[in-house]
């Protein structure tokens, strides 16, 4: 019986953990300039969020950044 209760607790804990853990998110980013894509490399988490929200300033001009596969 003790074994069964322990199994129950472990399985419950594992299942809650597996659906709630937060994994790091990274994507390849780029912006479009003069009809060409300028690659920015892989950006993760807060860097990714900031780039998408604020864009990137290049030579005083702000460009919209896209971070997804084509």
């Amino acid at each position, binding site marked *: 019986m003790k074994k069964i209760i322990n199994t129950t607790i472990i399985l419950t804990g594992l299942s809650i953990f597996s659906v709630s853990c937060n994994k790091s998110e990274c994507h390849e980013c780029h912006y479009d300039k003069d009809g060409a894509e300028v690659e920015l490399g892989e950006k993760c988490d807060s860097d990714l969020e900031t780039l998408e929200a604020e864009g990137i300033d290049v030579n005083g001009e702000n460009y919209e950044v*896209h971070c997804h596969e*084509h």
Partner: protein
Amino acid sequence: MKFYFILLILIIISFAKLYSQEYQGIVIDKDNGLPVPFASIWIVDLNTGVSCNSQGRFLLDFSLPQTMHIKVSAVGYTSAISSISQNDTNQIVLVLSPSHIELQEMEISTTTGILQNYSITNVESKTLEELTTINTTTLGQSLGNISGVYSNSTGNGINKPVIRGMSGMRVSTYLNGLKIENQQWGGDHGIGVDALGIEKVEVIKGASSLLYGSDALGGVIYLHEEEYAESNMFEAGINSQFEVNSMGFTNGFHMKIAKKNIRFNLFGNQTSQADYQVPNGNFVFNSRFKGQGIKAALGMNKKNWVSNIRYTFVSNELGIPGHTHDSVPSKEDLFKPNASRKKTLPLQVNSSHFLSTDNKLYFNKSELKFTLGLVSNNLEEFDEKVTIPGIAMKLNTFSFNGLWSITSWKKHKILIGAQGNIQTNKNNEKAEEILLQDLHSNSTGVFGMIHSKWNQQLETQIGIRADRNEFEIASPSIKDPGLTLNYQSLTYSAGLSYKKNKHAYRINISSGYRPPHPIESLANGVHHSSRRFEIGSLSLQPEFANQLDLSYEFNNEHIGLLLNPYVSVIQHYVYLNYTDSLIDNYPVVNYAQNELTYFFGGEVTLHYHPHFLHNLHIETHYTYLFAEDGQGKAISQIPQPRLMGLLTYDIESKSKLIPSSLALQATLFGNQQRVIENEIYSDQYSLLDLGASWKIVSAKLKGHLKIGARNITNTNYINHLSELKPLGIQNPGRSFYISLNLKINQKTT
């Protein structure tokens, strides 16, 4: 308020007669009077049971309600259901009739609470095991194997059930008594739950269910969660499935434990599918998806009180195929030479928490059942940015459902009930756009029904329901935040069933009513995953349906035949009208209405088990639907006629290498030429699936291994209900699969 609510429950409990007794019993063979060893004794009311010993004897030594339904079954016998009352003797003798095959198992319908044989409407009931004789990728695909039910799909991951040509808000889906509310208005918003912990599905077709709301004009899908373990038993298991076509896997586990008066179930799973492959070898870009879920249920009973607390969490990350970053997609954008499972755009993230408690109290001549539930759904659609959603909404729904069944009279059973919900929809400020405003809504319905059993042949049922719906706009972003929409309705259902010998006849007339959903009234924005700009209309009228449903059933030991024609007339049928305009490169669609829309159709089911070949089992069904508006014009997205046949053969062999059963499924879809302007017609096509299954049986371990292939001829086709049809994106090509399911059982004491 809380205090009065708790007080009310305590008063109700105190009025219930609280006493119980112990039962001993035996199961015997009707023909020779000998005991039937190892028969299963299932207490329907508690979702648990016990097994008989080798002498056919059993003991029910736990707290039992005053009246209960016992289902008894054994290999080689026709199952039976008996109603036992505590006024009866505590010595139970249950009798089983020998039969080498059981075409139609005896069951009490969860949706009606009445023996299915005596229901005045045809309730289709299938176990998930039956629906996955040939494995499927999702629950939505499994539901598409039921006669009269189709699956509307956006790739592999998003499936919506379609009953008699209707889906979305016209189909209500229930998860053990709790209505699933997950922004189901969207054509690309799937059913929202997967097969995790689901045992059985019941389908009520058409607008005939007063118990489950008047707005289910298409029908009701009731998902019945897995039963608890037998009393004093522990069960644990794992399951795993791999599909070659999408390199997809699903892994899960379950655990069940049951003591005398308390029971607990736990399930968990995880799935990941890459892009699927079409017959020419290319892969559909971004048809990938992944998901995970957990499910728990706790059941308790004390004398005349039975209670269950259930929780489910489902989260899915679904790629939306058929879209690109460019405004005009090319074939090179839609298909790729390689598959991937990496997250990309566009993307739909849909997660839901379902929490409910259902309680049943048993009185002298009546039963009271009440369910309280909370559904919290979070929907985010990402179109241009991976961290900033295009739209994001949180829909919280609190619902209640009370049903009082009175059996004070010998011939009549009276059902009185109330149902309702309070709902809030809130947009996330982080989202780029608002498609549907913030709003509050509340709905209440009351109903009464009388089910009468006049004699062994004739049963009738008549009922009436009143509903009230109110929607209040709470968003500060629109000009009139105080706008309130009110709707009221009265609907009915009446019918009879007549059984004579092996023949059963049913006739049912009923009505349904659906007020316009706020999305239909208020939409004004881009629906990213549908790639269109939707505009609602405040002048829409509620839909009102009248349905006539007839059925004839013949059953003997070897043949089961069902004919189920129907006609349904819907006033103010709402549809999406594509205009020539574009906003931000998205086509503009308006919500519009037809004055009258007619649906004629039917289902034919034949179940044949030849006497000369007992191991062979043939099941076939045909579904047909014709629909047009008041001017005789076609209606969009009407399913193709479908003939589906499943042939299974059980092999008796001692060799472990030889499969225990083989299955062949053939499906023929007829053409659909009746289409609206700009809708593409569909040609006929046929699909062939094969499967083999090995039973695994040892002293402690049970399970099965399944290997098979869907679309084995690699047929190139696009189903008429595929959302990807306008883009010419095919359904999956040939797909091999393998699955393994293992479980152990042991006594807890």
